[in-house]
């Protein structure tokens, strides 16, 4: 079994008299890409900031690369990459200047297996900023700036990378390139990635595992497929007979279709649609937030 890079047990966070996290438990194993999904205000950013060592938790046990982020030293920092939401910092600098400057902090931590920092030109090419390398950062668009943030996050060749809403403001092409970059990092560099996102499609595409955070705890944990299968066992069957459309919801699509085809030879346009991640997500979050479905979801979380 692979070693845990992140271990969280009973994590709680309280701001004033408001509980944001009420008991979060999860692990992330080496080399995994894990997406943390959840509605606005669910505590995704709080969770990731606690793991980054940027925020003190109220209670619970947290271990990141073998250390408690609250007490971790600067050597621990060197092994971690954080992609921050930048805004207008270093406006007068160029991407090349800033990357080579920030990269220098990691030079003392270079090892033969993990040379640090990344070569600046290689990094600029990886995030598609090679043509803008010597322009003032001020002149970059929102998406270009975000790509620079990603480059800064990985300049120290981290073993563990945190990304908070990494593709906000990306166009589809930049988003595709970003996904390729994450694949490359995990395949070639054995980097572990924990990201928060709003984008279900993105989570499905790049994450090995999805955690859904709602009402202050993890309500689901599994691959996109597993989640869809477990939460919403049902499927929708659609077909046409003599130009007439039919739709039927069933829990056992295979048996239903077998009977349907046997009974009616004129079936056309048969379509079986399993619940998507989006259906699962909406169903889960809705039931947790309305407090109706806590029973089944607890059962589900235990099963996972």
């Amino acid at each position, binding site marked *: 079994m692979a070693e845990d890079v992140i271990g969280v047990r009973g994590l709680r966070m309280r701001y004033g008299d408001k509980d944001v996290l009420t008991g979060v438990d999860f692990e992330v194993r080496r080399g995994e890409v894990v997406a943390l999904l959840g509605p606005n205000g669910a505590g995704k950013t709080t969770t990731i900031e606690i793991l*980054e060592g940027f925020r003190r938790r109220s209670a619970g046990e947290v271990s990141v690369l073998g250390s408690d982020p609250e007490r971790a030293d600067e050597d621990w920092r*060197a092994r971690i990459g954080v992609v921050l939401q930048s805004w207008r910092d270093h406006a007068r600098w160029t991407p090349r200047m800033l990357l080579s400057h920030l990269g220098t902090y990691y030079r003392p931590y270079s090892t033969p297996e993990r040379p640090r920092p990344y070569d600046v030109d290689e990094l600029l090419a990886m995030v598609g900023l090679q043509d803008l390398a010597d322009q003032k950062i001020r002149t970059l668009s929102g998406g270009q700036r975000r790509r620079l943030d990603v480059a800064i996050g990985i300049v*120290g060749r981290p073993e563990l990378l945190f990304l908070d809403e990494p593709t906000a403001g990306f166009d589809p092409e930049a988003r595709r390139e970003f996904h390729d970059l994450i694949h490359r990092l995990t395949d070639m560099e054995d980097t572990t990635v924990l990201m928060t996102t709003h984008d279900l499609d993105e989570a499905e595409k790049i994450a090995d595992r999805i955690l859904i955070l709602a009402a202050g705890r993890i309500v689901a944990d599994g691959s996109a497929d597993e989640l869809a299968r477990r939460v919403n066992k049902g499927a929708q069957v659609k077909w046409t007979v003599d130009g007439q459309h039919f739709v039927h919801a069933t829990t056992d699509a295979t048996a239903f279709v077998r009977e349907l085809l046997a009974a009616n030879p004129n079936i056309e346009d048969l379509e079986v649609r399993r619940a998507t991640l989006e259906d699962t997500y909406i169903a889960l979050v809705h039931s947790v937030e309305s407090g109706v479905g806590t029973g089944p979801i607890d059962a589900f979380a235990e099963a996972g």
Partner: protein
Amino acid sequence: MTNPRSQALRIGLRRGWTEFLLSLRSPQDVWFYLFTSTLAVGFLWFNRNNPIEGTELLYTQVTLPSILGALLVFGLYVGPLSTLALEREDGTLLRYKAAPHGMVGYVASQAVYQTAQVVPSVAVILVPSMLLFDGVGPLGLRGWLTMLAVTALGILAVLPFGLIVGSLIPGSQKGGTWGMLPIMVLFGISGIFFPISNLWGWVQALAQVFPMYWLGLGMRSAFLPDAAAALEIGGSWRTLETVLVLATWAVVGLTLAPRVLRRMAERQSGSQVQEARDRALQQWVR
């Protein structure tokens, strides 16, 4: 393997120099230098023929060193204060917090950047004044050395407090209240534009608590003949007192600054940056 901490210190010093060079090429900063230069030199120009009663000295001769002392305090306090307040909000600080020993580098870069800026801020006023007016400028080698020593003491006494207050204020919008306001008050009471002895006793006492009065006095001692000391409190340049007061500020500032900065850095988070951003955007909309 190089020591990561001393490596970070070196990177920071280099960053400070880079920031300084970028600032010299930035129209915004160049305009600011020209603005203060025009204001100060213009003020002296309109008073260029005014004598100081009871002496052989001209108003320009006495006031130029006082203005330089006051501007040193202004630059070394408001400069780091506003930079820090802004960079806490725009994510710069968080970037360095995310890097190993990044905060060491960041603070080193601020020290270099803010110190380097002293040179152009003094030069843009001193050089044109020396060209335009008679008998102004440091007196001989001793005068120049005194000016350097006073400047160095001023940097140590004031710069840490700029960083401390910049760490403590709740947001960059408060920069005016915490940065400009105290400086403006000190401008008025520190004997910059008129002799401090014209003021009530308690105001004189208050002014002598703060570095601005002493920097002005130190600068005057570098620029004026010894006879001019007769105009000062106690009829002396009070060199020893100047060193003691400024050194006290320096020791207190340099002791407090690391603690305050560390505490501030610990509290930095992405959500804070996000909140500041939302706040600023809302202000734009209003």
